[in-house]
């Protein structure tokens, strides 16, 4: 089987690359092992959170950073394409790349964000709270959302919170099984006809408040439930992030995947690339675990397999390696140097990753592979947590590599 481009990894970066290439007419395949970082999506995408203005913040980044390889001006131009691209997929974001706004974390802390889902609560870039008094609701018995933390965070910023719990007989079944009261299970229950009932319960508390805030536990299968709920609630309703799994994250991944498939892309779920077939400095094809001797061939390949948690990088007692193709990685030899004693310091291991040239070509034994590209969190020399750059690097490197492939075809 022959494709124009094969993408390894079905998370944010792989899907964006696949969609961009497919909408320009390429025949693409994505091989995905399953879970990705979208499963703990906060509701917001970050570009660079070191300062209020992403452009200024990006100037602090080292020369080896992926944004630098793209070029900061180009990166900001690419960023302009992201909101319309998601709109095509059916997901609407608010925010812009000129100035970060703030998202509200599950612990009631404000963090800088570039784009936030329309239905989510957010605070404008000036940091002034948009409400004086809110109803802060939780589903009774749901332990992955803590109103006390959020109420304390909002109170510090002068917002009065009326905290209430919602019980519904339909959720009782979940509560009888001690492990069932999780965000995705609640979202599976709170759908269809129950949206009306839920809205009625919410409206009991939606009097004399500026807005209603609740955990993002609605809309696993699509936007429809979210839209209907917002319509039926008397006051502006905004969602807040829960602890994982992330309902909107799972929905976002599903919508991106569907859009990719609608554009003609082939999405192979639950498969893993076993090895690459190399011809000189080119990658000719890949073999997967589920497809035996079949060699999937393509003109170009993108490695978007993620970091350690997604198994895009693997470590053992002796070192770090890239498990699919055995690509060269940037890491440190001495294990004690991988860590800092304080968990919240910048951990060196977090910036380990596949080494690439400025064109995002990885190398094997020092030799660049000319038709292979790496994108997203498998890349070295960025520290998504400390820079507030995870989603931005995933998306912008994917768009940049897609542009490169299209230009060269």
């Amino acid at each position, binding site marked *: 089987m022959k494709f124009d481009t094969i993408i390894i990894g079905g998370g944010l970066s792989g899907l964006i690359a696949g969609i961009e290439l497919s909408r320009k007419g390429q025949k693409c395949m994505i091989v995905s092992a399953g879970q990705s970082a979208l499963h703990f999506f906060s509701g917001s995408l970050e570009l660079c959170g070191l300062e209020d203005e992403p452009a200024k913040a990006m100037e602090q980044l080292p020369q080896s950073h992926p944004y630098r390889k793209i070029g900061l001006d180009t990166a900001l131009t690419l960023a302009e394409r992201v909101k319309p691209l998601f709109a095509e997929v059916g997901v609407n974001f608010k925010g812009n790349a000129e100035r970060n706004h703030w998202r509200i974390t599950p612990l009631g802390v404000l963090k800088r964000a570039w784009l936030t889902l329309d239905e989510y609560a957010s605070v404008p870039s000036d940091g002034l709270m948009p409400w004086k008094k809110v109803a802060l609701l939780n589903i009774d018995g749901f332990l992955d959302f803590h109103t*006390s933390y959020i109420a304390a965070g909002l109170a510090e910023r002068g917002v009065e919170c009326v905290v209430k719990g919602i019980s519904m007989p339909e959720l009782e079944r979940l*509560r009888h099984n001690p492990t069932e009261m999780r965000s995705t299970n609640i979202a599976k229950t709170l759908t269809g006809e129950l949206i009306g009932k839920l809205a009625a319960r919410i409206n009991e508390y939606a009097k004399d408040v500026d807005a209603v805030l609740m955990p993002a536990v609605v809309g696993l299968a699509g936007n429809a439930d979210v839209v209907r709920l917002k319509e039926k609630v008397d006051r502006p309703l905004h969602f807040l992030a829960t602890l994982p799994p992330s309902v909107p994250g799972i929905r976002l991944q599903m919508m991106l995947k569907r859009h990719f498939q609608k554009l003609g892309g082939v999405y192979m779920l639950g498969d893993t690339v076993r090895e690459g077939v190399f011809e000189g400095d080119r990658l000719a094809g890949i073999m997967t675990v589920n497809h035996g001797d079949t060699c999937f061939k393509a003109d170009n390949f993108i490695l978007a397999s993620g970091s350690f948690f997604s198994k895009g990088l693997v470590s053992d*007692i002796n070192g770090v390696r890239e498990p699919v193709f055995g690509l060269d990685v940037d890491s440190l030899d001495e294990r004690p140097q991988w860590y800092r004693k304080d968990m919240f310091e910048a951990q060196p291991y977090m910036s380990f990753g596949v080494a690439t040239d400025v064109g995002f070509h990885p190398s094997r034994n020092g030799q660049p592979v000319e038709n292979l590209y790496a994108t997203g969190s498998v890349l070295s020399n960025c520290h998504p*947590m400390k820079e507030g750059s995870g989603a931005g690097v995933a998306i912008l490197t994917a768009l940049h590599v897609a542009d490169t492939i299209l230009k060269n075809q």
Partner: protein
Amino acid sequence: MSREYDVIIVGGGITGAGTARDCAMRGLKTLLLERLDLTAGATGRNHGLLHSGARYAVTDQESAEECIQENMILRRIASHCVEETDGLFITLPEDDLGFQSTFIDSCLKAGIRAEAIDPKEALRLEPSANKDLIGAVRVPDGAVDPFRLTVANVYDAQLHGAEVLTYHQVTSLIKEGDRVVGVEAYDTQARQKKTFRSRLVINAGGIWGHHIASLAGATVNMFPAKGALLIFGHRVNNMVINRCRKPADADILVPGDTICLIGTTSSRLPYDQIDDMKVTPEEVDILLREGAKLAPQLMETRILRAYAGVRPLVAADNDPSGRSISRGIVCLDHETRDGIPGFITITGGKLMTYRLMAEWATDLACRKLGVDKKCQTAQICLPGSETEEEKQKKELQQGRRTLGHKAAHGRHGTRTSAIDMNDSEDASLVCECEGVSVAEVNYAIEELGAKNIINLRRRTRVGMGTCQGELCACRAAGLLGKANGCARKSLDDLASFMNERWKGMFPVGWGETLAEAQFTSWIYEGVCGLDAFSKKEE
């Protein structure tokens, strides 16, 4: 503030807990002071091995005899803290098989059941053991949960009228002339200085007892011995596995609940480092290399964390150099030894002999106070173990029982009935790895004095499973926040809890452990912004 007690016990490890129970059971008005949480020292940082005594049989008959006697007592009085696994002492091709008969003879002499079994039979009993073994001896080793055991002792002491104050650091001993008549302590949570008066002070501070003794003006020569251990995320072995040779590094593999532990290394440590122990990469390498000789599967098993405990080795009084070390129980009457009446030190010994240590110390205390009461701690069962196992099982079968019930029963024994799980919200699980319910967490907060997540972990195992507190820590913090009414405080606590976990993880930070650590950081720092609550360390 000043109150009068018969005895004040300093130290909330197993020795202090056992001594508090014994004293209280003999009718003494007892106060236990602990500077941190219960089991925060060596008690919480060891194998959790229910020694049969076999390990000491060849080198130290006296310790071996004490071990087997206490082993049999603990099986009875602390059945909910003990798992009767039995143990194997295996001989590998590189070991001297001739040692086996000496070993068995010494065990039998000490009263320890020891039976040589065929290597094939040994592998059938314990399939994880090294297939190359050329000999095996079966002994009555087992596993004991030191957290549970300590909490049960403290709980029983309280039932007998003792008062227990954690997070109270003894800052000085009050003396009248040469006599010790009480202590001054600093309540680190209320940030308040307090005075407690008593007729006797018993120093049960483990290695920190060196310092407590010096406050009284006495010198007890203790040498800190560090022992590093690794915890694996999967229970590889069902029986304890030892090497049949003279005790050496990393030659005991102990199963416990869903995990197993390999240890220990042994090295001297400067006294000023006892509060800040690091496991070095070299120690990790030794533990893994030697551990894999006992059970080769360990090489492929995920390591949850590394940690180290520090044991007090007590030098004989006539040998300040520390070359002549006693591993036995040391009970010092400072009145006769140093001319300091009112002060007793109980040290040396080991987890296995805590009850006996407590008995010795309490016997001495009673003699001094003119109290004529016999020790009953070897006969009367601890709370949680009172009834026959049959009864426990019956209780377990009554009514609707969830995963949380079953797991809680393992941890709290017959005390489980005090955990109210009638409501479905109470039954919902905070920690899925370890089956800890909302009700159990609330029970630990209300009844067992848990004030923070680390306290909760010690009392319920929350955050100790394979995920190492990934989501349960946040859920537990939420419940604590609700109980103490302060969100900010519980977030500070959550940040320090996660950081404490990390310190045990990074020495073994590769493979799945590193992947999990990265995920945890993405959640807590990335999604949640917990870094805003972390205290900068110097």
